[in-house]
């Protein structure tokens, strides 16, 4: 019996969302009096034994050159084998891009109920009930998992990783691997930017900024505090900013610690993608903008006047 946590990597490094999944899985193992084990697939440059700090006792490392590029089907089958070998009753993955690619296939393969987008630990007092976001952030559902094996896709930034002491035992796992049927051609990364889904702080701009040429102040503030940049749908549709920056009901859904919205009115569709943010700041010249109702802090004012002053104040604070 164990809780198995899939540790997702990018270029051989463990993603932040995987530390969250590891901590979550370890807490769940404690709660259900079993052991937390992890599976790492493909090459790793990380010291995997340090996952012990997050409560992982044992790491199964499946290393094979066929696994060095992510493929949903191949990874799913490898993780399925590890799940069976360590008799895991719960599999935890981050509900990030790769988690969303793997978890459903694993669910179908193991006939294991999946809760994708979990926001807190399961209630195991009566069944196995997991709270997850539904209606694009406008509500939560409590989902009971009926199958013997349960799969949880943990929403990124919903569970704070807790690092303590400990060293995990790292063992090589020999999986039977079929050659991936999807062939990797290229990875194109936007250099020097913090990925939106991993960001704790996000600065976002809307139509109120009038044009792509005015994004300098968004980028400057983001650079000063180490934030990612995002935008509203209107902005992405007008091609002022790339599509991957679009957050909202039909774009990305994020839950950072800070969502700082400049010149975004806060239509219900936009709010759906960002209303799980811990702190929302709104700068808008329209006092009636619906976003103020969802905000924690706000300034009613012209972004072009307010933002330079905000940037100056942050510079002063940072001693820059």
């Amino acid at each position: 019996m164990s809780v198995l946590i899939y540790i997702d990597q990018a270029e051989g490094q463990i993603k932040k969302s995987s530390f969250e999944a590891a901590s979550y899985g370890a807490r769940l193992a404690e709660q259900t009096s079993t052991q937390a084990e992890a599976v790492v697939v493909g090459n790793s440059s990380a010291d995997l034994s340090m996952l012990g700090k997050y409560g992982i006792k044992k790491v199964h490392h499946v290393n094979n050159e066929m696994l060095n590029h992510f493929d949903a089907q191949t990874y799913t089958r490898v993780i399925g084998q590890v799940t069976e070998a360590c008799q895991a009753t719960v599999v935890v993955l981050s509900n990030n891009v790769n988690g969303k690619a793997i978890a459903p296939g694993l669910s179908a393969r193991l006939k294991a109920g999946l809760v994708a987008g979990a926001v807190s630990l399961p209630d195991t007092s009566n069944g196995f009930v997991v709270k997850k976001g539904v209606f694009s952030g406008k509500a939560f559902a409590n989902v009971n998992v009926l199958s013997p094996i349960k799969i949880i896709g943990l929403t990124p930034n919903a569970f704070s990783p807790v690092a303590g002491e400990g060293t995990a035992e790292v063992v090589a796992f020999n999986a039977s691997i079929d050659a991936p049927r999807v062939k990797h051609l290229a990875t194109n990364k936007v250099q020097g930017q913090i990925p939106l889904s991993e960001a704790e702080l996000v600065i976002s701009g809307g139509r109120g900024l009038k044009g792509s040429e005015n994004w300098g102040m968004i980028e400057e503030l983001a650079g000063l505090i180490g934030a990612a940049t995002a935008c509203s749908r209107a902005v992405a549709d007008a091609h002022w900013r790339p599509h991957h920056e679009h957050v909202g009901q039909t774009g990305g859904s994020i839950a950072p610690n800070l969502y700082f919205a400049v010149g975004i009115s806060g239509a219900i569709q936009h709010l759906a993608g960002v209303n799980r943010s811990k702190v929302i700041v709104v700068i808008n010249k329209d006092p009636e903008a619906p976003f103020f109702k969802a905000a924690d802090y706000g300034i009613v004012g012209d972004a072009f006047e307010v933002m330079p002053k905000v940037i100056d104040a942050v510079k002063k604070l940072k001693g820059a």
Partner: protein
Amino acid sequence: MKILVCISKTPDTTAKIAFVDNNTKFAADGVQWIINPYDEWYALVRAIELKEKDPATVIHLVNVGGADTEPIIRKALALGGDEAIRVNFDSQDSFSIASQIAAIAKDGAYDLILTGKETLDFNGASIGGMLAELLDIPFISLATKLDLNGTIATVSREIEGGEEVAEAALPLVVSCQKGMAEQRIPNMKGIMGARTKPLKVVEPVAADPLTAIVGFELPPAKAGVKLVSADQPEELVRLLHEEAKLF
């Protein structure tokens, strides 16, 4: 080329979200239903674009739902589906829904199966991956671009901070999102034609659910916004630093 596009109905994006029956059911009264935007704008429209390039392409639509989903199926036919299949089955469990679609897909021998990346109501992002596993064919998720060259598909997929480009031989399951295509409005010819396009209703196959929703909750209300004067933006920075401790 045979393409299967999976479509689901969701409440309109502006619908008020509320629950009835002791918070166990979505309050559907007065709610306008639409085709899940990811299914329509990206999966279906991309299928239509592929058909425009290769007129021999056939687009089938599949929906798992009750008779009340037929208006949105007709709309999808008006946009450009050739035929539709509705599996007469209502469920909130993605595995039992995917099992229905897998049964249809097995019969239809499709080259390409497209889904939206997720539905706006349950946000499971699960159907595509489950289908691929049930059908034993490859799956590429969160795709922003899809091109076909004969029976080889080239797909771009979102990753953190960028994209990955991959290719795979058909058959293939792809979940689609923004970037893939642009929203279209059905024209009059499409709307007229949709009335007579085949919409077949089939009964479900046996599939036990793996999950059950026991109840819903609304997020706690916000305490209210703390407004700072536009003349003192430095006060906002101080609050974010000292009170919210964000940076």
